[in-house]
């Protein structure tokens, strides 16, 4: 009896190894070839029937881009969700676009534009000879068609209102009319000047869709089968699995795009996604855990690519609750009690810079003259005593349950803040709830103090300061319920003048006021990183978080 378990165990092990060997055989070929670099990759390519006829030089290759979540839609106007734009930036083009790594305005489908002196009439001259993927001509009529579609929509269909103040017939709607004056000229007439108007037009949601395709398919089907003018054409979408785009051979920009195919795939877990990059199953990943950056840097086959920051993570104080935080002096005191540098070292692997104002330095109008409240617990204690709280007080400190680019680990960051507050005598009780309720309760002003952040939409100062701290934004994104009339007047003025220099000055003043009143402790502007194989080049991440891979290539 005693010997038999041995035999059985051996037998089982043998069977198991057979199974494993059987499987490994299938994989070995491509796997080995990948390690031997150049010739191997070609071999892998040639195994695919579609590419086998073409010589290796002329194929631009396939880029496999793994990310944490799937797109919710492929008609970009229907959503505000970033994973959608990441894909649609390749399929659609807006009239204007941003600079390669900043938010200056650059021509796109509109090659020239002219603004009237009163800031009410914008005349765009469109590129000629551009065609949609379905062969429809891109012209002024197509632009009008798209804007008419959006302006006649509603909040559930299109979040268009967030940028243009409403829909047709609404009081707040900025656009009076959009007209095609000839084949290649479109004139926008505004009801009143909107300073960030051009920057808004450049945003991903306002990509121009093929009117023919929209008519033929209807909105719902179009959402699954998008047709634009962009460098890549839509091929296939299997939800939560992959989105396949192929090169648009008739793309109007000569010689572009460089890739033949782009595949966006979904791997929800950050560590698993990194594993997939390390095995070579995918070429590029986003959403790297800061703690994993070292692993990528140590790998000779991989590289880190930085995305310029256009976000801010902050500790907000709700100013109208019945507690000491309603006193600006207390908020200033607590501003001295947050060790931003330590947070960046510990939780951002150094890929962030300490924030001293609402918006990151990449946004025009950034006030670099503001001197941040230095980390100084002793001073904080003194200031608290001066404000009448020598023995401190107790508050609830809320942190978000999900990682955000600006706050990767809410709970741990909150713990550090809790400890440093304890040093100055303030007791912070940590609280959290699920993300949907978190936003809702923050908006309602139900938190004493909370962690939150913001990623810019259009790279305009207005999109940070007005959106996050103006009294008009209470109930949407001004979660501190901070209201300052002086600030409000400045921000409204800045919205209506079109001279950028003048606007920048106003925004600098606005930041002074906010600094003084300290409704937030601005924590960080984080630099999100993506990791890619060394063979990937020309991938230039945009601060807005989404970019076309037009110039990206992958070497064999």
């Amino acid at each position: 009896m005693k010997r038999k378990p041995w035999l059985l165990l051996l037998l089982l092990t043998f069977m198991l190894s057979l199974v494993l060997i059987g499987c490994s055989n299938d994989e070995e070929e491509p796997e080995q070839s990948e390690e031997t670099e150049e010739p191997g990759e070609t071999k892998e390519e040639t195994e695919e029937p579609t590419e086998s006829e073409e010589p290796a030089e002329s194929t631009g290759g396939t880029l496999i881009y793994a990310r944490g979540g799937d797109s919710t839609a492929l008609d970009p106007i229907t959503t505000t969700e970033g994973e959608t734009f990441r894909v649609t930036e390749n399929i659609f083009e807006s009239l204007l676009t941003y600079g390669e790594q900043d938010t200056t305005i650059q021509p796109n489908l509109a090659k020239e534009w002219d603004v009237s002196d009163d800031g009410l009439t914008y005349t765009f001259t469109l590129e000629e000879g551009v065609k949609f993927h379905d062969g429809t001509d891109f012209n002024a009529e197509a632009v009008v068609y798209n804007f008419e579609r959006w302006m006649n929509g509603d909040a559930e269909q299109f979040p268009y209102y967030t940028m243009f103040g409403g829909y047709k017939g609404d009081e707040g709607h900025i656009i009076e009319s959009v007209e095609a004056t000839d084949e290649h000229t479109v004139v926008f007439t505004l009801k009143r000047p909107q300073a960030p108007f051009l920057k808004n037009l450049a945003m991903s949601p306002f990509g121009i869709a093929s009117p023919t395709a929209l008519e033929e398919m209807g909105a719902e089907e179009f959402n699954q089968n998008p047709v634009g003018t962009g460098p890549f054409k839509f091929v296939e979408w299997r939800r939560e699995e992959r989105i396949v785009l192929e090169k648009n051979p008739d793309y109007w920009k000569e010689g572009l795009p460089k890739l033949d195919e782009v595949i966006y795939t979904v791997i929800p877990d950050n560590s698993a996604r990194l594993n997939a990059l390390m095995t070579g199953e995918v070429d590029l990943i986003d959403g790297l855990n800061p703690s994993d950056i070292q692993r990528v840097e140590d790998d000779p086959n991989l590289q880190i690519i930085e995305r310029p920051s256009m976000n801010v993570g902050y500790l907000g104080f709700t100013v109208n609750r019945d507690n000491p935080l309603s006193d600006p002096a207390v908020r200033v005191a607590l501003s001295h009690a947050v060790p931003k540098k330590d947070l960046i070292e510990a939780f951002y692997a150094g890929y962030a810079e300490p924030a001293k104002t609402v918006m990151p330095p990449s946004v025009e109008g950034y006030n670099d003259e503001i001197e941040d409240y230095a980390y100084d617990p002793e001073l904080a204690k003194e200031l608290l005593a001066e404000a009448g709280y020598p023995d401190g007080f107790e508050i609830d400190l809320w942190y978000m349950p999900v990682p955000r680019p600006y706050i990767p680990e809410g709970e741990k960051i909150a713990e550090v803040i809790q400890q440093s507050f304890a040093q100055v005598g303030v007791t912070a009780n940590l609280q959290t709830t699920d993300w949907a309720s978190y936003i809702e309760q923050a908006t309602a002003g139900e938190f004493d103090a909370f962690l939150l952040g913001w990623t810019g939409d259009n790279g305009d100062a207005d999109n940070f300061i007005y959106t996050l701290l103006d009294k008009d934004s209470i109930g949407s994104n001004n979660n501190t319920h901070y209201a300052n009339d002086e600030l409000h007047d400045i921000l409204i003025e800045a919205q209506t003048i079109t001279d950028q220099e003048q606007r920048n000055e106003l925004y600098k003043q606005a930041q002074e006021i906010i600094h003084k009143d300290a409704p937030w402790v601005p924590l960080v502007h984080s630099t999100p990183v993506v990791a890619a194989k060394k063979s990937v080049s020309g991938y230039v991440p945009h601060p807005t978080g989404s970019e076309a891979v037009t110039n990206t290539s992958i070497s064999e």
Partner: protein
Amino acid sequence: MGAYTIRRILLLIPVLFGVSVLVFSIIHLIPGNPAQVILGQRATADAILEVEKQLGLDQPLLLQYFTYMGDLFTGDLGTSLKTKTPISEEIWGYLAATMELTFVAMLIAIFVGVNAGIISAWFHNSWFDYIAMVIALIGVSIPIFWLGLMEQYIFSVKLGWLPSTGRTDPSTTIDTVTNFYLIDTLLQGDFKAFKEVVSHLILPGVALATIPMAIIARMTRASMLEVMKADYIRTARAKGLSSFWVVYKHSLRNAVIPVLTVIGLQTGLLLGGAILTETIFGWPGIGRYIYDAIEARDYPVIQSGILIIATIFVFINLIVDLLYAAVDPRIKYK
């Protein structure tokens, strides 16, 4: 047996009704507003009200429930609030992905679990028994996400034997007919793709199999130990039948009823509870679909998704009950 089956299927109606009431009440109790989620962080209060109205969320709850049930009876599972796609169109792909994974996982779990249990019972108190039961104990307690990441690290990153994530390589195109990739690739006669699908199933299959495997092994062992003490086994041995024959024919058949129960329950659990495995292995399954729906407060998806899983669960249990009769002639349903 026919009458019994029909009765059981009819019993499904009150069960599902109960489930629907329960699910409906629970999801409306959790705080958070789907309109807020749809519109995102940028929403204004007016826009939220507007969207609530369009989604019918401003209606009284009871009315919402009856509207939903009414639609359900006409075969309409509702439309996802998030993707704006009819649920009946999108749910099948996710369900098939999970069923395929569950099938493989249960195959592994049953094969290894039952055999390990039998051998442990056969060589009761031998070192094989001890080791197998320690492994089984670890199996039930191991965190799946850790196991999954370790599998990936060892077998994909370090050894390069198996792919780490997904149902296929991202660049492989499969014509989806049934959405079971094992079947679809065979239908296309594409054996290369079939092998690829199999290789993608192994790591998540093993990860998902660990818990049921351990439970099945323990259950089989316990049940076998009991049976092997019975008189008829002693008689069989006394007749001079080989140990192997005694164990696999006489004992197993009598010991299998509780094991079957466990297998049925575990299969049902895996169908709905594969969420961790699905997340780690980038598996586009029903667990993640419902989980994402909960995050987004996508009420119709949560409701219909859970109802479908509950239906399958009930059916699996019915099949198990019918199997009892097939295995054990003493059990008869009237």
